[in-house]
């Protein structure tokens, strides 16, 4: 009897309902088998090209969330006014009417007083269309590290380079893949199920993988080479490789740089572009040995490099400026900083540029593209640091040196959603910089409106960690109000933010806290009213987030009758909007974020209440046509397809991408003027630079204060987001893996300090301290200790799951000093001392 191909892998009995996984933010396609109203199996949807029928361990554990006995299934209110860890809230179940009344009364009072007094923590990625609710309420605040813990500097730079939100190397064509501080293709980040398949296929066809990471992650374990590195020094390593390409091998893609970037643009001594009397950027015209407007000179005649004298002014091309910066970024100096040997830096640079095949082309579906099958990929570990802007710039520029941006084999931008790249003509023949794809940044304002100083980061992200400083020292920032009410919507600030003690202080000041969630957590246990949401297996939405290879939406639909007395978060927020008197504005916000303003046929009537199904039916039809509404999606599950080569490669066309980030410098100069006019004298502008270079971060400098080790956190495939860390199906497996059993410490280091596996140790950073069980391993840098997210929760409601309590984020600092001055990106590494607890 023949075995059917995997595309028919679902067991025949029962009804299989297509839907979308909600265990991480990315939403792989699933099918759920339901027998007599009970969901009994979740499998990957084989028809969805995103995950090709595969499903990671978290997706396979979804039923244990749906049927989790510790879920909150009815609204509750607190009867014990005392709040804090270990304090019994005295929960009493109430009806929805009473719950809504209380919440609307408290939020209404604040709204009439000053709507900014609402602090908001929102962590529900797949319901991204709802994130503007606080804005409509009137609050600009952001009380979570979400998005910034990994993407604070990443997203702005991706947006400025090619209108993308994320990035990945070309699985299909890459031959040489260097990866820094990322689990892409092995354990985490973009669309894990499909990505690990694509990575495995690429490795099997011979792609070489080099993984740079302070510890032997799953990626490092599978790589052809694991390069250990000091956390936060990946940029030094790559600058060293760039030095090798530019100054030693002199091999780089001159044609790409000249044709597709602003590298040839002339820069004056002040660091700004050299412009003519009409304000046009100039290039050096080799035919006449003089500066000419960029659009008056054929590409072949533009100088890529050089220093020129014009009327007593010293001009250099943007490329020349970086070339000069790179002179002293020798492999030897970078090796001292990163501990990656200089010989390795040289060898990898040589291998990389060789594999890149500069000058090669490839024909795909009848069109010829540049072919550059070598690329550098990176994520949180390599750039979520105090100089994250410079980290991200470095990695992009290194890729640009071999001309691989958005070409077959190379480093590809990943759009935020189905709308693709945000590319439009900007100034000087360049693309328009798009650092903000989630929401526009308000103009500079003093005093600031937002507690996280959003108005002071013109190219930045939402720096939620700054709340720890601004709310406890408001006079320093001119903040003229104090928040009183907190909305926790699928967010756990006491777990996801740095400086937990300060977050707790802030939460203590709240007069009222409302939680929209499924579980009690470190944070939601502080709520005055708990409004129970539905799990992803009981709710409706269309999802398309950061798809690396595909595009199109996947439907999430209820597979069983919702359990208990819960409501969909959309319904909850809409009900509150109506009771608070802004239903019309809420509907208008949805008109904007759902794109109905681009086709008014689907616009919501502001005064009507729409059900969650009505909303998503409109959305589906507005994007896919009237014959593909919600009913079509319920049958087919998704409209996901592969992106075409035209959609994937060279989306910038004839527009130039930034090599020299003059835009960043200009924005910084403008901000400086605005701040001086407002009388702010102690703000930093040090990262508003046009090109990256090496400088120490405060974490590195903390070494001089006796904090001699680096502490990092990490995750692997079993656990992402706080709520997966306490699911028993997953924890009973992760607890068996040594890397999730304690604080990882290098064997040689442990021997030197007299530490053995099982001993209790304490990590002390400038900001806080944690305790845990030592786990001696080979696979970590001798100067580094590692704390898996699996051991970080301090509060667990399921009695079969042990609390490990090594809450890593207590070690991190949320202050401006440890924050990237241009992007607001936070520092995800801490310097620590190790103490042995007797």
């Amino acid at each position, binding site marked *: 009897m023949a075995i059917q191909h995997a595309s028919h892998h679902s067991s025949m009995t029962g009804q299989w309902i297509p839907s979308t996984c909600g265990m991480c933010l990315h939403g792989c396609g699933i099918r759920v088998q339901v027998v007599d109203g009970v969901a009994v199996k979740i499998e990957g949807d084989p028809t969805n090209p995103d995950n090709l029928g595969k499903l990671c361990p978290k997706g396979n554990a979804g039923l244990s969330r749906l049927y989790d006995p510790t879920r909150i299934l009815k609204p509750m209110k607190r009867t014990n006014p005392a709040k804090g860890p270990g304090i019994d809230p005295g929960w009493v179940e109430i009806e929805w009417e009473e719950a809504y009344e209380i919440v609307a009364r408290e939020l209404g009072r604040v709204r009439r007083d000053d709507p900014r007094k609402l602090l908001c923590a*929102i962590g529900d990625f797949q319901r991204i269309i709802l994130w*503007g609710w606080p*804005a409509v309420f009137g609050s600009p605040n952001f009380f979570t590290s979400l998005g910034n813990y990994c993407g604070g500097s990443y997203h702005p730079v991706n947006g400025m380079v090619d209108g993308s939100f994320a990035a990945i190397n070309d699985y299909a064509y890459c031959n040489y893949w260097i990866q820094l501080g990322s689990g892409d293709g092995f354990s985490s980040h973009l669309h894990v199920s499909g990505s690990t398949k694509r990575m495995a296929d690429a490795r099997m066809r011979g792609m070489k993988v080099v993984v740079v990471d302070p510890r032997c992650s799953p990626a490092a374990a599978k790589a052809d080479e694991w390069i250990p590195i000091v956390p936060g020094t990946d940029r030094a390593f790559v600058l060293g490789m760039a030095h090798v390409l530019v100054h030693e091998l002199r091999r780089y893609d001159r044609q790409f740089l000249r044709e597709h970037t602003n590298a040839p643009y002339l820069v004056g001594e002040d660091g700004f572009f050299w412009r003519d009397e009409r304000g046009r950027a100039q290039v050096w015209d080799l035919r006449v040995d003089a500066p000419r407007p960029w659009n008056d000179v054929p590409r072949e005649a533009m100088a890529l490099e050089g220093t020129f004298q014009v009327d007593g002014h010293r001009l250099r091309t943007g490329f020349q400026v970086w070339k000069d910066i790179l002179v002293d970024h020798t492999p030897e100096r970078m090796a001292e900083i990163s501990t990656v040997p200089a010989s390795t830096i040289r060898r990898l640079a040589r291998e990389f540029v060789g594999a890149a095949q500069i000058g090669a082309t490839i024909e795909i579906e009848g069109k010829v593209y540049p072919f550059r099958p070598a690329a550098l990929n990176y994520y949180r570990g390599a750039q979520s640091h105090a100089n994250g802007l410079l980290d991200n710039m470095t990695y992009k520029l290194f890729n640009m040196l071999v001309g691989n941006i958005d070409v077959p084999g190379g480093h590809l931008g990943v759009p935020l959603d189905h709308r693709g790249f945000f590319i439009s003509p900007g100034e000087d023949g360049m693309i328009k910089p798009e650092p903000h794809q989630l*929401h*526009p940044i308000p*103009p500079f304002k003093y005093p600031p409106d937002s507690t996280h100083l959003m108005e002071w980061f013109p190219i930045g992200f939402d720096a939620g960690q700054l709340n720890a400083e601004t709310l406890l020292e408001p006079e320093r920032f001119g903040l003229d109000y104090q928040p009183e009410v907190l909305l926790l919507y699928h967010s756990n600030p006491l777990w996801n933010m740095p400086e937990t003690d300060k977050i707790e202080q802030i939460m203590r000041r709240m007069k009222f806290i409302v939680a929209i969630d499924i579980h009690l957590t470190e944070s939601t246990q502080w709520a005055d009213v708990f409004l129970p949401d539905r799990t992803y297996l009981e709710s409706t939405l269309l999802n398309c987030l950061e798809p690396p290879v595909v595009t199109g939406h996947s439907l999430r639909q209820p597979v069983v009758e919702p359990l208990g007395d819960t409501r969909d978060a959309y319904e909850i927020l809409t009900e509150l909007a109506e009771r608070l008197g802004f239903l019309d504005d809420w509907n208008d916000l949805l008109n904007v974020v759902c794109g109905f*303003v681009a086709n008014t046929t689907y*616009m919501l*009537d*502001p005064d009507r209440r729409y059900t969650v199904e009505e909303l998503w039916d409109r959305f589906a039809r507005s994007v896919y046509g009237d014959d593909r509404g919600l009913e079509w999606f319920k049958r087919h599950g998704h409209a996901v397809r592969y992106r075409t080569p035209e959609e994937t490669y060279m989306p910038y066309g004839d527009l130039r991408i930034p090599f020299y980030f003059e835009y960043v410098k200009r924005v910084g100069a403008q901000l400086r003027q605005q701040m001086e006019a407002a009388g702010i004298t102690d703000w930093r502008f040090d990262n508003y630079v046009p090109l990256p270079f090496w400088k120490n971060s405060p974490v590195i400098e903390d070494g001089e204060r006796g904090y001699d080790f680096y502490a990092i956190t990490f995750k692997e495939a079993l656990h992402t987001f706080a709520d997966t860390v306490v699911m028993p199906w997953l924890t009973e497996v992760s607890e068996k893996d040594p890397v999730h059993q304690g604080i990882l410490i290098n064997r040689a280091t442990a021997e030197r300090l007299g530490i053995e596996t099982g001993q209790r140790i304490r990590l002390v950073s400038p900001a806080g301290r944690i305790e845990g069980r030592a786990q001696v391993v080979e696979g970590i840098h001798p100067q580094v200790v590692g704390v898996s997210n699996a051991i970080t929760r301090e509060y667990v409601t399921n009695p079969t799951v042990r609390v490990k309590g090594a809450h890593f984020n207590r070690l991190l600092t949320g202050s401006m000093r440890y924050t990237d001055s241009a992007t607001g990106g936070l520092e995800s590494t801490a310097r620590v001392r190790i103490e042995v607890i007797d």
Partner: protein
Amino acid sequence: MPKIHVAAIGMARKLVGFSQRTIDFSGETVADLLRALNTVDGRTLYANLVCEGKLRGDYAILVNGMSLTAEQLETRLEGGDEVVTMAILRHLHGG
């Protein structure tokens, strides 16, 4: 007379007093349209949204789904066009 479909979002909606309306339009440009739309304060949408010939920074205008720049108010309109005037919510959040 050509018909233009006009939609208004947020504060723009509150100014003109409607969310969507198809109107008979005798003018030629977007600026003409804004002058033809009365607002609840006794003025016109043009007076509220335009400053020195340019669209105010806290508003956006879409014509058939395409966003205009602040200087593109002389964009010509044709019968059947869809114009959306919207107040920009600067504090929208995403992740």
